[in-house]
């Protein structure tokens, strides 16, 4: 089985959950002997003149090379496509990002593209244009490499997947990591929605990262249930060296929210629950780590509730800071309004931090050793936080079972399900 995969990000430059998931799945598939041609969009700057370049996985400089197995190196080929597509941005955000990051910092970026794919006129700061252009590149790749099936991750690559399918006649699998409803609530961007739906309709199989998302795909996009399959995300087992002793400089217990401070993540419910807990027990500190468009509103609300001395904002955290934050935490809270999967609670559990997660998250479907509440139920959320802080039995139970539960969510198991779907779609029986 050979797969042409349109994914996102590749080590060592992974910035978010989507890239992590693509990489994990690719590794998992390699373990089962699947060959993958992994194509990602990337801003090259001016050093490259081709539309895309092929790189062997073994040539990639990795700071964690030891984690890649030999079969991975043999099975995976990796391609970068000159493109300004970036994950996680909606069209408006993209425009802003583009004008700030791309235009200012890399004025010569237009030289990236080969004449073949060059658009007439200037590149508009238009995400949709990039999507189409990426699809054109994909078309060219699709004609040159050999594969049995096409696998496209998230809506920005659906057009590329469809193009590849058109030229090769091979079946297409689209992988839904999030939908427009998760990102924007009910205020969906119609263009994005149309691209998503078109991708799902054109696809032979749709993979969703949770049953929660599967339901949205079926109900909101009208996709026939029989071609939509759930494959829950997994996590990379990391054997982190013994945690350096993180010294907590405060005596109180710490309750943490870590993530983008946006509508989707439900930060306001966290603030309200904090207020409830603090009314009963002032010896707790709440931390909101992350930034986003709701941050200022949260700061104002905290001030309004007069809990500022117990509620702290750290701004955006990355890398070691995140680990540090987890190490200091006594409870991790993910009150997401709509979370297709949600990998961060798993990272918390791996550091033995008990978690409270919203039932409106995909990860709630795979976790037993976590407290689950409806995101809107502030009372239940506050109660869960209070319970973990005050009843020792919970902490003991989570410490005993939480980490091992997470460590058993392996990509190689998820890959088996994906492989089944491939076989099924291509008519291979094993």
């Amino acid at each position, binding site marked *: 089985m050979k797969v042409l995969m349109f994914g996102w990000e590749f080590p060592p430059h992974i910035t978010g959950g989507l890239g992590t998931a693509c990489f994990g799945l690719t590794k998992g598939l390699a373990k089962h002997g699947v060959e993958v041609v992994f194509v990602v969009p990337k801003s090259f700057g001016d050093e490259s003149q081709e539309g895309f370049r092929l790189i062997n996985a073994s040539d990639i400089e990795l700071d964690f090379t030891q984690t890649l197995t030999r079969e991975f190196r043999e099975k995976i080929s990796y391609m970068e496509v000159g493109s300004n597509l970036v994950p996680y941005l909606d069209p408006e955000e993209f425009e802003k990002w583009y004008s700030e990051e791309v235009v200012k910092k890399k004025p010569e970026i237009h030289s990236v593209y080969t004449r073949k794919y060059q658009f007439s006129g200037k590149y508009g700061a238009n995400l949709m244009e990039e999507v189409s252009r990426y699809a054109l590149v994909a078309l060219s790749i699709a004609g040159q490499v050999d594969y049995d099936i096409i696998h496209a991750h998230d809506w920005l690559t659906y057009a590329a997947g469809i193009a590849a399918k058109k030229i090769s006649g091979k079946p297409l699998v689209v992988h839904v990591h999030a939908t427009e409803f998760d990102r924007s609530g009910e205020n969906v961007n119609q263009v994005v929605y149309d691209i998503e739906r078109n991708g799902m309709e054109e696809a032979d199989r749709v993979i969703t990262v949770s049953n929660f998302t599967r339901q949205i795909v079926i109900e909101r996009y009208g996709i026939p249930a029989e071609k939509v399959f759930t494959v829950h995300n997994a996590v990379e087992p990391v054997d982190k060296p013994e945690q350096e002793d993180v010294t907590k400089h405060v005596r109180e217990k710490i309750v943490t929210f870590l993530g983008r401070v946006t509508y989707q993540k439900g930060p306001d419910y966290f603030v309200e629950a904090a207020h409830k807990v603090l009314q*009963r027990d002032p010896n707790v500190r709440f931390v909101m780590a992350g930034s986003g468009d709701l941050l200022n509103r949260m700061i104002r609300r905290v001030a309004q509730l007069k809990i500022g001395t117990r509620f702290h904002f750290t701004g955006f955290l990355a890398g070691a800071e995140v680990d540090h934050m987890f190490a200091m935490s006594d409870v991790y809270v993910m009150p997401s309004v709509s979370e297709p999967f949600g990998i961060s609670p798993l990272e918390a559990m791996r550091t033995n931090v008990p978690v409270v997660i919203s039932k409106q998250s995909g990860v709630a479907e795979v976790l037993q050793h976590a407290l689950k509440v409806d995101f809107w139920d502030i009372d239940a959320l*506050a*109660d869960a936080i*209070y*319970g973990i802080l*005050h009843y020792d*039995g919970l902490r003991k139970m989570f410490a005993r079972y939480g980490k091992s539960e997470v460590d058993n969510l392996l990509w190689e198991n998820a890959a088996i399900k994906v492989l089944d779907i491939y076989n099924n779609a291509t008519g291979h029986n094993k």
Partner: protein
Amino acid sequence: MRSVCLYFQVHQPYRLRTYRFFNIGQDHYYYDDYQNRHIIRRVAEKCYLPANRMMLQLINEFGKAFKVSYSISGTALDQFEQYVPEVIDSFRMLAATGCVEFISETEYHSLACLGNEQEFIRQVETHRKRIEKLFSQTPQTFRNSELIYSDSIGETIGNLGFHTMLTEGAKHVLGWKSPNYIYCNNLNPKLRVLLRNFRLSDDMSFRFSEKKWSEWPLTAEKFVGWLNAMDPHEEVVNLFMDYETIGEHQWKESGIFDFFYHLPSALFSNSNFTFSTPEELYNRLQPMAAISVPYAISWADEERDLTAWKGNELQSEALSKLYSLSDAITKCNDPVILRDWGYLQSSNHFYYMSTKWFSAGEVHKHFNPYNSPYDAFINYMNTISDFSIRVEDCLNAISSVAEKTVKKPALKAKKEAKPKAAAKVQKEAKPKPAAKEKKEAKPKPVAKVQKEAKPKPAVKEKKEAKPKPVAKVLKEAKPKAVAKVKKEAKPKAAKKVKKEAKPKPAAKVKKPAKTASAPKKAKQ
């Protein structure tokens, strides 16, 4: 003559309402009235009432050859009195036939045998008296919650004068022995032990409607055929199960009523078996041997051990928190506190916290009103946190009253007490002040009244009037000041009861979950 001993367990716990931490110290009513009422009525309609009618019919038909035994937990009795009193009447009619033995258990279907022995004894005696009062027969047979048994628990029960105790015919205890004989306790050979034949019992209670089961459908004739195929030396087949098997766990549509209805006639016409109650077996048969059970067993799951209630950190913490209050409670005399103390002990609360079924899945959820054991734990711990504050307050009030020894406030307090009772209906929230009044009203005997003062609603009040056996227990339990207590207790009980009998405020609506006593599922 060989015997079939048919025994049914009737139990419903008081399920707790959603109790948040911010209720602690403010709101002292713990029960989900809506759910409790809904469940008890539903089960009464589907099981208790029609099944009792059927049993009565069978007794009438077979002229006393048909015998059956029941144990009914105190929490079930309380809910019958509160919501469906006709169930009690129908059990009374059964009792009047003389063909029905009522078996004793702990008043609250508790795990007190693991937590506090004195509390255990108190509950056993309370229940025994209650059954005596209700059904005019003194129980001579005992079954512990979830059929939990060990040598030492059996010894305690034997010392209380019981003839027989029921437990599980657990394989790991029996080894090569058969459950189909009478055994006796290893430490006190006077106590007989009857062992449940779990294969035949579970054929009815779990597998009956299981269409994938190779023996489905099970008929009375087939079942009697199995009995006939047993070793002819075996004396008794103990069929112990939840009464809810008939009509609730196994729906009427499965044919469960027909099965039981036809069982006696099939048995009488095709076999040399007859029906016996445990007490009849005690009078007729001798034990074959002593059975050694050094570690407690139960009727739950494959393991037949205690891990369904005491198997993880959540359960251990909750149980130890609960029973850490035992000593304080003995000094406390507030009837509402004592009632809650009892209701909070039902084994079900701990069963809900079990993490054993994470892998086993659905079947157990059927018996669990919570989404997860963690939710169950947090809710219980919040509740017990409030409860322990109340107990503490109660003790403080007692000691401060004792210091003052003031008698004047007595009258005033009584006056206040009345409107309060009314107020309570609306929200039971003020047991603390209530407690205080009482204490002030009768400063002296306070501390001890508790044991007597039954925190139960209605009906029972007269029990206290006839305090013979209780006194005996109390002597063993706490030989301090029994006599005095009784005098005081009577008038009080009456008053109290009035207050209690009032139905509670309809609390929160929760999805109705069936919660029968024993954990089912893994038994097959």
